[in-house]
């Protein structure tokens, strides 16, 4: 697979050189804007991003008026099946044959890294809402890659800090065995150690594991205070449900879901999930503005938005704003404009896109409500504290991104 990817990249570079954009400033190439939503439409991450992300992008386009500078805005979507080669070949087809101007969603870090690498050579902006790995804005940062909603640095800053301060000194990780899980585990481990805790063990579980029981028993026998789940989506849901079946929490260990989405909590139910703390970028019923948008989304999608779905709406909206204000879809110009803008909408307040592509914004530490506290089907979370953007994200002084330092 890797050789294919590499060969593909070489091919992509060759093609890109032949078809250098001839766009003059002040005009749109091919007389329209086309936005690609590339997501997991059928696998473990379907419910947290997937078809809901397409709806969020459609809403953004409709709310923008359906056109920019009098030209139509189109949307295209596809399933990357959590496979980097499929993601990259779809993105290549979109860019070469279908004139896609910006690609968003890109849940799954392995897919995200491969598409962002390709988009760099093709000079296409990617606004990643779904993937977690900090490599997107650190070691593998690109001039066109934007990481919009959360990353594996921001997640443990909230959750792990809170757990260690409450006495969870020793940690055992159950890690999703690919780029994202490893990145999340390493960053969480670093936070735990910096606060005086220790990591006593780790086990890697393949993506979309059905049966976590033996991993959970390994975690239990390690005697760690906290079992850190460095995974996401259906994997997290299965692990937490099975931990409940095997009475792991009742036997005295704490579970830390390092990346939990609203849909995960909903599918587990409050009986199982209550008291679970995690870090999120968006809480749908936080204020009137978020509620109004989320209710509209719920009417069309049949579920309240996760942070990444809300993030797609915000990313597409701000991309269109930048296109309108600069009067071009030339990626260099639009990216420069996005870097100057202060982002304010229902999803983000005072957000800034840093030179490494990281969108710096506040995050929230939340706790799942008790069944008695919940007033409606989707009333699931209490906000415990706000994590300011400068703590949540890697600072420009510390970044390993070669574009900055």
């Amino acid at each position, binding site marked *: 697979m890797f050789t294919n990817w590499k060969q593909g990249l070489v091919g992509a570079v060759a093609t890109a050189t032949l078809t250098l954009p001839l766009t003059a400033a002040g005009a749109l190439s091919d007389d329209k804007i086309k936005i690609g939503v590339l997501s997991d439409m*059928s*696998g*473990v991450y*379907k419910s947290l991003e997937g078809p809901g992300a397409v709806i969020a992008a459609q809403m953004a386009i409709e709310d923008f008026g359906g056109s920019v500078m009098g030209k139509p805005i189109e949307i295209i979507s596809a399933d990357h099946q959590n496979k980097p080669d499929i993601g990259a070949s779809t993105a290549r087809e979109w860019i070469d044959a279908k004139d896609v101007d910006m690609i968003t969603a890109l849940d799954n870090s392995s897919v995200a890294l491969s598409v962002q690498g390709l988009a760099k050579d093709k000079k296409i902006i990617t606004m990643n809402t779904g993937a977690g790995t900090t490599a997107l804005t650190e070691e593998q940062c690109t001039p066109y890659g934007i990481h919009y909603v959360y990353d594996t640095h921001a997640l443990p800053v909230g959750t792990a800090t809170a757990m260690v301060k409450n006495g969870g000194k020793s940690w055992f990780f159950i890690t999703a065995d690919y780029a994202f899980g490893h990145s999340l585990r390493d960053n969480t481990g670093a936070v735990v150690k910096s606060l005086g805790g220790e990591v006593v063990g780790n*086990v890697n579980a393949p993506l*979309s594991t*059905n*049966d976590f*029981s*033996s991993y959970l*028993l*390994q975690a239990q*026998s390690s005697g760690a205070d906290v079992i850190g789940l460095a995974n996401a*989506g*259906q994997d997290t849901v*299965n692990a937490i449900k099975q931990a409940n*079946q*095997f*009475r792991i929490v009742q*036997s005295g260990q704490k579970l830390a879901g390092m990346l939990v989405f609203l849909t995960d909590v909903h599918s587990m139910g409050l009986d199982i999930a209550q008291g679970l703390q995690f870090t999120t970028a968006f809480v749908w019923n936080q204020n009137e503005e978020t509620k109004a948008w989320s209710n509209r989304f719920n009417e069309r999608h049949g579920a309240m938005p996760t942070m990444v779905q809300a993030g797609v709406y915000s990313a597409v909206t701000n991309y269109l704003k930048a296109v309108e204000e600069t009067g071009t879809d030339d990626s260099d110009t639009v990216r420069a404009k996005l870097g100057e803008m202060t982002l304010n909408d229902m999803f983000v307040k005072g957000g800034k896109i840093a030179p490494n592509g990281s969108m710096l914004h506040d995050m929230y530490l939340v706790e799942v409500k008790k069944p008695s506290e919940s007033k409606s089907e989707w009333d699931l979370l209490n906000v415990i504290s706000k994590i300011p953007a400068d703590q949540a994200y890697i600072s420009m002084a510390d970044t390993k991104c070669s574009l900055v330092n």
Partner: protein
Amino acid sequence: MQVILAQALLGLNVGVFYAILSLGLAVIFGLLNIINFAHGAMYMLGAFIALIGYSLLEQWFGISLQVGFWASLLVAPVIVGILGVLIERLLLKRLYDLDHIYGLLLTFGITLILQGLFANYFNVSGTPYPGQPEALSGVVNLGFMYFPTYRLFAIVFSLVVCFATWWVIEHTKLGSRLRAGVENPDLTQAFGLNVPLMVTLTFAFGAGLAGLAGVLAAPIYSVSPLMGADLIIVVFAVVVIGGMGSIMGAILSGLALGLIEGLTKVFYPPAASTVIFFLMVLVLLFRPAGLFGKEK
């Protein structure tokens, strides 16, 4: 010690699924000489029949009927068995004179078709089965661990099915006729027994066993189009280790390999997913007919 017991029990939990699936494969191979690659798909189908029967009949077909878990234990194997009859009568029958490889390729194709069909309508990562009976939803404190009641039930139920099958084939008149049909079909037919019918029913029974395993697995694992594909390779390894066509060999090696896999998770976790294949290589090198198989 607690850890070892706990992982051993979980290993046994996996082992009963290996056993019941490899038993079906062994029955089909032993009596029909077919390497049934569609066995994993039959298992998957059993789980989906349980899922559809429980939660989708009304939504899909407008029938306000709910087939519960207990009923599924009967209904799913029967439906999968009927599909087995169709596959054997309409397709496999034409290939009996050809090499094994043709049957293998045909059944592999059937697997891909069934998987693709279900992947089109269902979540690839799995849909939880909501119909686990209330009576089995609790947890039992075994002293060394808390163990979900349902999993205990699945272990006991599968063991009963496995040994009952073995007993029927080895110790009853029906079983002796089946075995006679395998040894010498022409002679058996001359005694007035309908060998082609026996062959069809045997295939249906093997398929039905896989369907039954699917229903049993549904509440533990999510129901997914690929659940059979994930398991079938391991199950083939189990059959190879036990000895192709040996009924007791399939059952015992299924259980033993589940246990070994579980214990490997205690002592050296990274090897857990490969230990079975390592053993398969050893068995093939030193006892090519398998631990319980007879050299031909």
